[in-house]
């Protein structure tokens, strides 16, 4: 019970700080809209090939927005020297990590709330429940992995370079499977949305458990 209270307190603290400073979300929202504008002009698409191109644009945008969001999760703590104060309490490092991942994941969800309608508007593709659920499921796994590596590289000077190098290879399954789910949901042929969604849930469970077990060793040293 105490771990849950700690996780929610950490997440609430991060979200309150973001709400008051508005450091990250407006910049990320601007970034996703700009990415879609560039993709809109960069790709030659019509009503036939839009469902095949839009998922690629969606995942590319999401990956880069995620790298920024998760990178900031621990970098800000290090800059303020507040991470140590948090870790020098009896609170479980796994609970602290869960709170950080929850907050960073929710910030990315806010960006997705801008990204998905804008994608529907620019590419004229259906943004259905299946599309939204595939993106949200992928966000869970991407958030826990992104935050784990962000915590790992936060004390390194070249963290902006290292974070994508460590994170992107492990995000590939989410991009491939999430891409299939979104392709199917947007009406492109040959993609099984249900099967892909099931796989995303499996991956989420696997990585949530793995990162919870390893977070202690990453944070507590």
């Amino acid at each position, binding site marked *: 019970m*105490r771990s849950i*209270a*700690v996780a929610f*307190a950490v997440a609430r*603290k991060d979200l*309150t*700080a973001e709400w*008051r*400073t508005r450091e990250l979300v407006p910049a990320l929202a601007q970034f996703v809209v700009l990415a879609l504008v560039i993709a809109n002009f960069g790709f030659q698409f019509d009503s036939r090939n839009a469902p095949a191109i839009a998922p690629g644009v969606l995942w590319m945008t999401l990956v880069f927005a995620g790298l920024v969001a998760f990178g900031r999760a621990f970098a800000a703590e290090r800059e*303020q*020297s*507040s*991470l*140590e*104060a*948090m870790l*020098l*309490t*009896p*609170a*479980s490092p796994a609970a*602290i990590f869960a709170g950080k991942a929850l907050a960073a994941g929710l910030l990315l969800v806010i960006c997705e709330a801008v990204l998905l309608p804008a994608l529907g508007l620019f590419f004229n593709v259906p943004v259905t429940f299946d599309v939204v659920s595939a993106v949200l499921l992928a966000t869970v796994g991407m958030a826990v992995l992104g935050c784990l590596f962000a915590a790992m590289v936060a004390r390194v000077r070249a963290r902006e370079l290292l974070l994508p190098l460590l994170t992107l290879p492990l995000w590939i399954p989410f991009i491939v499977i999430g891409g299939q789910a979104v392709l199917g949901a947007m009406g492109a042929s040959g993609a099984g949305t249900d099967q892909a969604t099931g796989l995303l849930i499996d991956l989420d469970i696997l990585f949530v458990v793995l990162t919870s077990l390893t977070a202690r060793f990453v944070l*507590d040293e």
Partner: protein
Amino acid sequence: MSTVVATGLTQRFGSEVALESVDLVIDGGEHLAVLGENGAGKTTLLRMLATAARPTSGSLEIFGLNALVERRRLRSRIGFVAHAPGLYPALSAAENLQFFCTLQGVAHARVAEVLDLVGLGDLARRPAARLSRGAQQRLAIGRAVLHDPKLLVLDEPDASLDSGAGDLLAQVMKGRTAVIATHDHALANRLCQRTLELRRGRVFGVPTRLRVVH
């Protein structure tokens, strides 16, 4: 009973020796001042006592527990004020403490009490970013005593404080075992029964007893 028993504490960063073979015993309720020039190893020693750093070699027992193994158990009994206040600038003074109450498992009612103790009762709702450096340091001291620790580790807590620093520190150290690193010998004399001087990571001379513990 001794609160801290350290034997042969050594810390190396690559080829650089930050602390070498420091032996130290601190009795319960005793106040120890750690003196020394910049880079003498004061912060390294204090971070070990606060369980924020592990020594390269040596052993450390705090409250009879192995501080290298039982770190989480000990943390509810240790309060630490580091060099940087480590506050959340967007949160108010009270919110900063409320957050740490949750992490420490302490009732939020303690916040008002601690804010009054450190003289920030009137600034409870002001964001930490808008507090003066001295007020931020007071808030960091308040955070360190939020959970009523039995051992207080203070790394140059007087660095940004005004002339009332001595009174505040005396108040928070009262009834606790305390280790304080400072450059202010007068403050050390006032607050502590004993001093330990470090030079280039080694204990210099014999730890001095300043006055009899009452």
